[in-house]
């Protein structure tokens, strides 16, 4: 543990202090970063020190790793955007209209491309788009200096990024790596509690909620892992192991859910003796994920668990051989088949829990242990149509505002155009673009009086850099504080954008009150245009977007039905979890979440069963046609939510299941046949329970 890291200290403090302390540390770092950037820019006599300060405010985030990651992609985007602008200028400098169309097209392409990426990578693409606008329009009228303008822009962004990076990493840092360690530990504890709930009777409703929490944790773990990579090389050494942990956490919790549904099914069907036969293994399973009867709180303490689970697996194998004998426990053919199939699922759950525990224990070692670990890429699932619509909208908004700017010969048209383009690009892929744009507008409106006060009374009185810093301090601190308020982050960004751009700090300072007011009005108009366009132009209708998200989620089953079988399970699972999170984000306010969550997790089960079925059929190498009929019927019934088809399908599955039971009874003494039929039976059982539950769940969208 790094002694300089205050996040560990804060984590141990009482709750009221924890949030406020974190907020004020953020304020301190942001303000210091802005002042440092201003100082450097003034010292080196750069053209617009204000823009360096804006850069710091844009990449201001609560954790050092996030700041560095966003900086990295901001720099990359700016650089690529600058190169593209110079190329466009070189080709089209004599054709104004063509140039504008080219810039609009580029912004559209980048905005659409951003939807294929996540987090800060997407942000880098957006920046790459509107940097052409930022550099291209001023440089167009002054083509001989285009190169200098582009270099200026890259320089000023670099200064902002370096200042923010240094301040956030060195001065009272809150590190992503620490948060990550905390979250990894909590995930394992949650997993053990989930295991308790899943292997005990009842509790299906809370399980879906826990699973949704897991999906969110998985997404957080993944983004924290990405951010911590930028913090220091010790995180880079651990990253493969962390990725493997995330993957096995996802797997193990899904397997537990499948097991839970089967156990519930057995209970409702009245398979008492089967449950009694399984109970010793289940209770032992609950016991061996603990060390000295308590859940281990850290990777070091978790070391013995993997061995204990391995012992349980060996024990299970012996016991399973006994289950196949017809005397002990005394069961009929159906009961024995249910016991063997559920036992197989239980074995899988134990096996995955063992992998999870092993990877978790390995995280403790400073290095090594990578061999044999799988890197789990998180899937990016996006709606291609929505992405395209977002791109076209950004391009159209730019064209329209440019036409207005040219038609009215508005002197400040540039600011308005720029902000309209930025707003449309930035909010294209957030769940609620209108709300985001409205928040940003609020930030601009709050920033306006602050700007007027500062410009009229504070700035003229500041002689020298030290006095300027003192004068700016309260205004900057307020903006940073606004960013820390939950739900007001965008307002804070808007405030900073309005305030810092409006001040237009430069040396020597040029006072032009009228110009400042005109610019402020243009900025407000620009963000207003963006807000209106996001609300009015498609896809403004949230219902439509939600329906598309749900359809995409249901269609993800085709991946399980037809995808290449190698490593299909992790790919399918991470896709479904991603899509469920997206669909949940579009849920209308005040709606209960449980039904929606349940659909997402039923998709996990149904897809899992399909993959299981395909694998068992592929292993046997026969009746491939019958198998594909079942798969096609399932995919069709689920994607079209056809209640009658579902009912028929469930009836067919029951027939298939009783055939398998008879087959199993006939071949109970043949090892290979028994294993193959048990696997098929497990697939049929999970598919049937999944579909039965799916037919009962109230449809979400």
């Amino acid at each position, binding site marked *: 543990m*790094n002694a*300089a890291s205050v996040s560990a200290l804060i984590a141990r403090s009482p709750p009221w202090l924890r949030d406020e302390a974190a907020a004020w540390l953020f304020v301190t770092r942001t303000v210091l970063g802005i002042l440092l950037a201003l100082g450097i820019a003034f010292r080196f006599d750069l053209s617009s020190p204000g823009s360096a300060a804006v850069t710091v405010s844009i990449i201001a985030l609560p954790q050092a790793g996030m700041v560095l990651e966003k900086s990295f992609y901001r720099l990359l985007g700016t650089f690529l955007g600058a190169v593209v602008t110079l190329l466009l200028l070189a080709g089209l400098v004599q054709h104004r209209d063509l140039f504008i169309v080219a810039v609009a097209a580029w912004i559209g392409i980048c905005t659409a491309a951003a939807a294929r990426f996540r987090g800060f990578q997407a942000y880098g693409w957006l920046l790459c788009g509107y940097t052409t606008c930022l550099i291209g329009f001023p440089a167009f009228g002054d083509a001989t200096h285009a190169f200098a303008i582009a270099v200026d822009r890259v320089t000023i962004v670099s200064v902002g990024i370096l200042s923010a990076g240094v301040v956030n990493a*060195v001065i009272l840092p809150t590190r992503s790596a620490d948060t990550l360690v905390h979250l990894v530990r909590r995930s394992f504890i949650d997993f053990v509690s989930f295991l308790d709930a899943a292997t005990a009777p009842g509790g299906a409703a809370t399980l879906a909620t826990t699973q949704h929490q897991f999906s969110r944790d998985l997404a957080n773990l993944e983004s924290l892992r990405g951010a911590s990579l930028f*913090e*220091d*090389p010790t995180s880079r050494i651990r990253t493969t192991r962390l990725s493997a942990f995330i993957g096995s956490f996802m797997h193990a919790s899904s397997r537990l859910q499948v097991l839970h549904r089967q156990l519930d099914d057995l209970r409702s069907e009245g398979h008492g003796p089967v449950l009694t036969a399984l109970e010793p293994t289940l209770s032992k399973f609950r016991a061996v994920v603990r060390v000295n009867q308590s859940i281990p709180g850290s990777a070091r303490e978790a070391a013995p668990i993997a061995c204990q689970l391995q012992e349980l697996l060996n024990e299970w194998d012996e016991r399973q051989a006994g289950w196949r004998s017809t005397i002990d426990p005394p069961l009929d053919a159906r009961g024995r088949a249910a016991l063997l199939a559920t036992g197989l699922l239980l074995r899988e759950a134990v096996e995955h829990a063992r992998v999870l525990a092993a990877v978790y224990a390995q995280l403790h070692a400073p290095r090594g242990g990578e061999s044999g670990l799988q890197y789990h890429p998180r899937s990016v699932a996006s709606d291609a149509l929505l992405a395209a619509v977002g791109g076209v909208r950004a391009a159209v908004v730019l064209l329209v505002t440019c036409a207005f700017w040219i038609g009215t010969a508005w002197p400040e048209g540039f600011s308005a155009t720029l902000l309209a383009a930025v707003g449309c690009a930035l909010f294209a892929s957030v769940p609620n673009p209108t709300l985001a744009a409205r928040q940003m507008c609020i930030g601009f409106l709050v920033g306006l009086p602050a700007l007027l006060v500062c410009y009229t009374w504070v700035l003229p009185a500041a002689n020298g850099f030290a006095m300027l810093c003192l004068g700016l301090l309260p205004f900057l601190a307020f903006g940073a504080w606004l960013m820390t308020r939950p739900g007001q982050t965008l307002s804070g960004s808007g405030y900073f954008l309005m305030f810092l751009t409006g001040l237009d700090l430069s040396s020597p300072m040029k006072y032009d009150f009228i110009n400042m007011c005109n610019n402020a009005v243009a900025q407000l108009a620009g963000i207003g245009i963006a807000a209106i366009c996001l609300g009015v132009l498609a896809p403004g209708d949230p219902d439509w977007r939600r329906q598309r998200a749900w359809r995409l989620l249901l269609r993800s089953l085709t991946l399980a039905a037809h995808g290449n079988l190698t490593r299909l399970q992790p790919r399918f699972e991470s896709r479904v979890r991603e899509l469920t999170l997206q669909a949940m984000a579009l849920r209308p306010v005040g709606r209960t979440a449980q039904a929606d969550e349940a659909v997402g997790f039923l998709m996990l089960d149904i897809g899992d069963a399909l993959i299981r079925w395909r694998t068992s059929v592929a292993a046997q190498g026969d009746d491939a046609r019958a198998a594909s009929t079942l798969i096609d019927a399932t995919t069709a019934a689920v994607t079209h939510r056809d209640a009658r088809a579902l009912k028929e399908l469930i009836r067919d599955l029951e027939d298939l299941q009783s055939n398998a039971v008879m087959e199993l009874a006939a071949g109970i003494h043949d090892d290979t046949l028994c294993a193959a039929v048990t696997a098929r039976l497990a697939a049929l059982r999970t598919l049937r329970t999944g579909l039965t539950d799916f037919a009962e769940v109230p449809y979400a969208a």
Partner: protein
Amino acid sequence: MPREVDFSGVYVPSLLVAFVVVLPVFWLLDGALARAGVYRWVWHIDLFRLCLFVVMFGSLGLYWYR
């Protein structure tokens, strides 16, 4: 070493060249130190790394400018 380097007509300050040259070297050294476990003995890792970079960059800059 001249103060500016001519890259096919574009004049780049040689300090920027020094920065770009030092960056990968620092990156390799940084990784090696982490693998060797040196950072477990450092109180403020990021401050240490920043200073290491400044020392490397400053040395190369001074060497070129002297």
